[in-house]
């Protein structure tokens, strides 16, 4: 049983799925913030899509780059440990990106804040 292959495949599946899931979630829910900032629905839709593609690219590239491990594993419990370490790293990076995105939108918004009520 080639545990290394199994764990690589599971890691890839897991990290791609996570990237897609978090990306779609941000795409749907971050839309309101971009509208707050840019005040133009069409422009916001396009900016949202651009940010989504950028997010996918950065995250999938990172998870592919850190795939390789120099040791080899022989048992099930080592597989679980390796997967937990790698997927944990990916999830932590994703959460950092997530909060960075929110933070950037928030600070830009603070700079250009309008005090009038929300309207379209």
């Amino acid at each position, binding site marked *: 049983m080639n545990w290394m292959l199994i764990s690589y495949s599971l890691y890839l599946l897991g990290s791609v799925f996570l990237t897609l899931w978090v990306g779609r979630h941000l795409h749907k829910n*971050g839309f*309101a913030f971009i509208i707050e900032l840019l005040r133009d629905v069409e422009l916001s839709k396009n900016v949202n899509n651009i940010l989504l593609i950028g997010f996918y690219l950065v995250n999938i590239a990172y998870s592919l780059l850190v795939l390789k491990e120099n040791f080899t594993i022989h048992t099930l419990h080592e597989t*679980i440990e390796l997967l937990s370490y790698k997927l944990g790293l990916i999830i932590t990076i994703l959460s950092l990106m997530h909060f960075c995105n929110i933070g950037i939108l928030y600070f830009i918004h603070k700079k250009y804040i309008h005090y009038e009520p929300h309207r379209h």
Partner: protein
Amino acid sequence: MNLIVISYIIYLILSIGVAIWVAEVLFGNARLFFDDIFHGDQLLSDSTNKLLKMGFYLLCFGFILFQMETYQRVNEFRELFELLSIKVGTIVLTIGVIYLANVFGFFKIRQKANIRGGLRLTNDARVSLEAVEKEILK
């Protein structure tokens, strides 16, 4: 070796369960906070709620997975219990700290929003507040 796998599985089930439960409680009740902060803007408040909830989940799951690996040998059930108690205890403590940080953050944000925009009550709250005032002034 088999006992370690069992303890990993139990650890994952318990930790993920605690994380999901805390997230549901926290962000189910935070909706009211965000409605007040954004002065009734339903779309913005819903979006903030979902985004922060997702961030909470990501943070918790990342930490749970990082904490999972152990170099201890587990040979019998007693050692399994002891290992589980340490691991799950660390997770519950950490999730508690993140939870409290979130709650304090929400309070702070609401304070800031009120200083900037003035306190706006929702319709029900305003109605019940007026009823109470009438009672007092009677």
